[in-house]
């Protein structure tokens, strides 16, 4: 084996020398005790909640897609500019034709 490679391997194998001891969270005993006495309070979101969130967002996205793409007729209002103007001016003709050009 090349000396450089061998030195590197030995350095890596020695990299855990002087590893410091770590201490657990000071509240860990309280968590254990709570689990023992059945008073465990979940401090994280449960898997069920995560799945419900994903399902809700999926449903919301699906409904949005269905409204935007699947039902274009229902979304588009058939209101013509002429009808809008007539409504705005409080004219209530029986038809879209404001006056009959063939009478009088």
């Amino acid at each position, binding site marked *: *084996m090349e000396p450089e*490679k061998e030195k*590197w*391997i030995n*350095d*890596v*194998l020695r*990299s*855990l*020398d*002087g*590893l*410091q*001891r*770590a*201490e*657990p*969270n000071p509240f*860990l*005993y309280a*968590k*254990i*005790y709570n*689990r*023992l006495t059945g008073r465990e309070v979940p401090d*994280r*979101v*449960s*898997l*069920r*909640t*995560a799945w419900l969130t*994903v399902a809700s967002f999926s449903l919301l996205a699906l409904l949005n897609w269905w409204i935007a793409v699947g039902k274009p007729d229902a979304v588009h209002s058939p209101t013509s500019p002429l009808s809008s103007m007539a409504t705005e001016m409080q004219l209530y003709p029986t038809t879209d034709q404001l006056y009959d050009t063939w009478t009088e």
Partner: protein
Amino acid sequence: MTDSSDLSALLDATRQGNETAFHRFYDATKSRVFNTALSYVRNREDAEEITQDVFLTVFRSGDAFRGDASVTTWLYRITVNAALDFLKHKKRQKRFAFLTTLFDTHTGAVLHEPVDPMHPGVVLENQEQAAILFRAIDTLPDKQKTAYILTRIEGLPQSEVAAVMASSVGAVESLLQRANENLKKQLADWYQSNRP
């Protein structure tokens, strides 16, 4: 209060439901349980989860301690089994969960920890090399991994490692030798593919 007979007395009192004794037992032994777990999983959250499981086991099945080994040996045995079970469980979940990139399938928590967590006790200047070594340790078979962690990282004498693993000193020596060979092979491969 780390003497084996004291620990035995505390365990006896714990078995009878004495909460103060259990607290003292926890204080006397939490460091070795937590650090052993940390050597397997390398991040605080998972190590604390394993530590919780270990002490729950101690409290609930203290009767299982028959006194044929020392209390610390028995405790190390529970810790090693809990850590290996935890790793297996995690590996199984990674195989099928398509949402693991978003949520931790064990707890449902949104993942925010780095993919390759670093043992908090590693000296700063050694972190890069220690990360490579831990990745290599991860690939070892369970028995070699346990022998290596308990001897080289936890610093236990081979006789105690043999007791923890319910094996002989010779078998532990052999496991350590194979673990070293495998690690050197892994590291040599890593050197070939990552160094000029």
